[in-house]
């Protein structure tokens, strides 16, 4: 009888968690996303060098349209890779724990992430059109941070700390323009890797 009571309480707790938070998010997704971001930042640095700009030395921030296209392509490839890896790890984790991957919580989580991210995308496009491209890097970090804060209600609360870190980094970036690549390497690279290992250690 006492065992049944303990089992019942455990079932209540796990059901409350499962029905309100997406718990199939794997720490490895963060680690891999971080590694991709660092590789991308390295590649971007090389592209700058090849086009005759030494990123950390120059104050000349005019870049050719070719280079801009290449940088944009790198960014998109990194995003797609990170998302794909994230989805794969989540599916794997949900199978392992015998959980549904697609339910009302997943939908809420994705909507809460997608709306601020889409707004951020449009905002950055407007910055680009108005000749303020230099603000794009910190702006992406700020909107990403807000998206994470927003999504924190529907997954592990720890993700909000990652959100705050991205926000701080983005705000700093707004006042020290021209360090976009470095900001991205720290925000999307280093912070993701730290967060991923932390989550992996805490929840596995």
């Amino acid at each position: 009888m006492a065992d049944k009571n303990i089992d019942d309480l455990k079932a209540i707790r796990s059901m409350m968690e499962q029905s309100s938070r997406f718990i199939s998010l794997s720490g490895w997704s963060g680690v891999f996303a971080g590694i991709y971001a660092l590789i991308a930042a390295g590649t971007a640095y090389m592209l700058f060098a090849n086009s005759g700009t030494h990123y950390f030395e120059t104050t000349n921030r005019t870049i050719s349209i070719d280079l801009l296209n290449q940088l944009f392509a790198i960014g998109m490839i990194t995003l797609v890779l990170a998302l794909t890896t994230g989805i794969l790890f989540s599916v794997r984790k949900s199978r392992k724990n015998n959980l549904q991957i697609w339910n009302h919580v997943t939908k809420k989580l994705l909507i809460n992430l997608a709306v601020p991210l889409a707004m951020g995308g449009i905002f950055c496009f407007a910055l680009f059109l108005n000749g303020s491209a230099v603000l794009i890097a910190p702006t992406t970090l700020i909107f990403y941070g807000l998206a994470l804060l927003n999504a924190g209600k529907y997954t592990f609360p720890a993700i909000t700390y990652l959100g705050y870190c991205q926000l701080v980094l983005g705000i700093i970036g707004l006042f020290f323009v021209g360090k976009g690549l470095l900001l991205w390497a720290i925000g999307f690279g280093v912070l993701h890797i730290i967060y991923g290992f932390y989550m992996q250690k805490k929840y596995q």
Partner: protein
Amino acid sequence: MNVQELNKDFENRTRLGIMSSLMVNDWLSFKDLKELLNVTDGNLASHIKGLERKEYIEVKKEFIDRKPNTTYRVTQLGRMEFKKHIEILEKLIKGE
């Protein structure tokens, strides 16, 4: 200390699951609950009926794109009773 009785209405695991999920969500549809609890339609429907009869949960029926959509929410009474149930479980485990 007088011995408090566990609420028999929450004894079943499916009912426990329905109540737990509804405690932390506003409205959940039949489909949401079915996916969460991994039970058959018939099983879920009969336990929902039972909880509804006790007025622990309330039902809202509406149409989305002409398809019926039934959603459920825990009532004030249900919330109170379920909280009490959890408290008694905790006390029993601690051996009070």
